[in-house]
C-alpha cells in the first residue's frame, strides 16, 4: 500500500477508470446491436448474403462434368469417389459414380480448384445437420451418364450454356497459376453480384 499518496492514487485511479469504463458500456446501450438473428428474423436468407467464394456444401453440375478426375485426385481425404469408363469406340467417358461424403469433407476447396469447367463447386449452403452419417453422402449419379466434352466449335451447347457460364465464372475466381490477372478482377456477372453485395442489415464497418 505504501505511502498515503499511493493510497489515494489507487483510490483515484479506481474511481476514474471505473467511471470511464461505465461510460463506454453506457454508450453501447445506445448503439445498434451487431447480432444477425439467424435463421428466422432476417430480411433475406443468410445463404444469399454470403460471398461468392464462400465454401459451403459441395455441388456438382453433372451436365458439364468432364470426368477428368482432377477433383478426386486433389482431395486430401478421399471423400470424393468417381468411377468412369472410357468407351473406346465413341471416345466418350461414361461416369457411373459420383459420390461425395459430406461428413468427411473439410470444405478446403482443393477439389473445385482444378476443375476445368466449374462443375464441382462450393455452394453457399451450409446447413448440413442430419440424423445419420449415411444421409450425408451425396450421390449425384443414379444411372451412368456421358461426360461433358468441350466442343471444338465456338458454339457451346445451348442446353448447358448457362451452367458453363456460371461454372467458368467460378473458375475465374481462382488464381490461375502464373497468369497475369489484372489487379482488380473483372466485375462479376449480374447473377452473382447479388451474392457478393452485402444485403444483410449488418452494420458495415466504417459507414
Amino acid at each position, binding site marked *: 500500500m505504501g505511502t498515503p499518496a499511493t493510497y489515494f492514487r489507487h483510490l483515484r485511479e479506481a474511481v476514474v477508470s*471505473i467511471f470511464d469504463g461505465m461510460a463506454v458500456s453506457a454508450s*453501447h446501450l445506445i448503439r445498434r446491436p451487431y447480432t444477425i438473428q439467424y435463421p428466422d428474423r432476417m430480411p433475406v436468407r443468410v445463404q444469399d448474403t454470403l460471398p461468392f467464394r464462400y465454401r459451403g456444401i459441395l455441388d456438382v453440375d453433372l451436365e458439364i462434368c468432364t470426368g477428368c478426375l482432377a477433383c478426386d485426385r486433389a482431395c486430401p481425404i478421399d471423400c470424393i469417389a468417381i468411377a468412369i469408363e472410357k468407351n473406346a469406340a465413341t471416345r466418350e467417358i461414361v461416369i457411373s459414380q459420383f459420390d461425395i461424403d459430406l461428413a468427411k469433407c473439410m470444405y478446403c476447396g482443393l477439389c473445385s480448384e482444378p476443375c476445368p469447367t466449374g462443375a464441382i463447386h*462450393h455452394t453457399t449452403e451450409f446447413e448440413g445437420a442430419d440424423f445419420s452419417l449415411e444421409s450425408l453422402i451425396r450421390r449425384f449419379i443414379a444411372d451412368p451418364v456421358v461426360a461433358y466434352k468441350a466442343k471444338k466449335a465456338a458454339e457451346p451447347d445451348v442446353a448447358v450454356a448457362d451452367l458453363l457460364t456460371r461454372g467458368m465464372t467460378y473458375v475465374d475466381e481462382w488464381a490461375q497459376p502464373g497468369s497475369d490477372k489484372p489487379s482488380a478482377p473483372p466485375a462479376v456477372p449480374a447473377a452473382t453480384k447479388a451474392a457478393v453485395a452485402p444485403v444483410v442489415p449488418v452494420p458495415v464497418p466504417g459507414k
Partner: protein
Amino acid sequence: MSTLRTEEMTLNMGPQHPSTHGVLRFVIRTDGEVMREAIPDVGYLHRSIEKIAEKVGYHGFMPYTDRVDYVCAMFTNQAWGMACEKLAGVEVPRRGEYCRVIAAEFNRIASHLLTVGLMGMDIGAMTPFVHALREREMINDLIEELCGARLTFNYMRIGGVAWDLPPGWRDKALAYLEHLEPIVNEFNALFSYNKICIERLAKVAAIGPAEAIDYNLVGPNLRASGVNWDVRRDLPYSVYRDFDFEIPLGSGEWGAIGDAMDRYMMRIRELTQSARILRQALMQIPDGPVLAKVVRNFKPAAGECQVRVESARGDQGWYVVSDGTSYPWRVHVRTGSFAAMGMIQKLSRGLMIADLVVLIASLDVIAPEIDR
C-alpha cells in the same frame, strides 16, 4: 500462524473447464487459494497432424495446416507454403506475397482480439470478450469474402495464394481499419486501463528476459519480457521489408517487466501496428499474378529446411524433411504455445488459483497448437 495445520489439496482443472482455452488439463496442488504447483497435462487435442503430413502430399497438407492453429490459420498456411517453396526454390509473385501479408495481418488482428477478449472473460468481464469477438466477426467477414472461409482459411497455396483480392475489397478493408482504431481506444477505456484489470494482471507471473529465452518463449510473450526480437523485422520473410512498423516491447510500467499485464498490452499494441502494416500493404499492393506456376504433383528435391514465421502466437518454426517423393518425409512444427505451456509449471508456483487463469490467458496458449 506456524502452528496452524493446513492440508494440501489436489484439484483437477480441465479438460472441461471454462477457462482452459480448449482442452487443457492441469493437476493443481493448492494450499487454500495459493497454488503449490500446477502440472499441465496436454494431448487432449492431439490429431497427429505431423503424421498426416507424411500421408497426404504437399498440396493436400495445406488445409491441414489450418488445423495446427485454427485461431490464426493464415500463418500456418504461410509457413507451410514458405517451407515448400524453400525446398523447391519456387519464387512467389510479388502480388501474391502482398496478398499473403494482408491476409496474415488481418488474421493477426483477429487472433489478438480473441486473446484480449478471452483475457476479459477469464477475469470475469464478459463485455470486453463480446466486444472483441464482434470486431473479430467483422474481420472474419472480410476474410470470408477473400477466401470463402471464416476459420480454416486454406487461402494460400505453394507458390502464392488461391484467390486474388475481390473487387472492392480493398476499400472495405481500409474502412475497417479506420473503424478499428477508435474501437481499440474504447476497449482500453473499458477494460485494459480499468483499475481492477491492472490490479489483476500486473505483477502476475513475471518472466525475465533471460528466462524467457531459456524457455524459448516467442512472439509477444518474448517481447513482453523486453527481448527486442520479431521475425518479421529481424529475419524478414515475404515482403515485410517494404513496411515501416514498430515492435512494441514490454516495459514493466505496471509492475514487473514481463508480467501478465505486459503480455496483455503487447497484444493491444500489436493491433495498431498490424493495422499500420495493413494500411501500407493495401496502398502499395502491386499488380501482377498471385500464384506462381507449381506442378500439381509437387516433388521438391531431397533435403530439409526450417522456416520461421512470426505468427500471432510468435515465432513458429516449421522443420520439413523431403526425400524427393511427392510426400514429405517428416514435418515438425515448433509452436509458441507448446513452449509457453512448458513454462506454466514453473510459473504457477505461489500463484493463486485465479492467477492461473490469468497466466494461461496472458501466455495465449491455444490447445490445438500445443497438441497438433
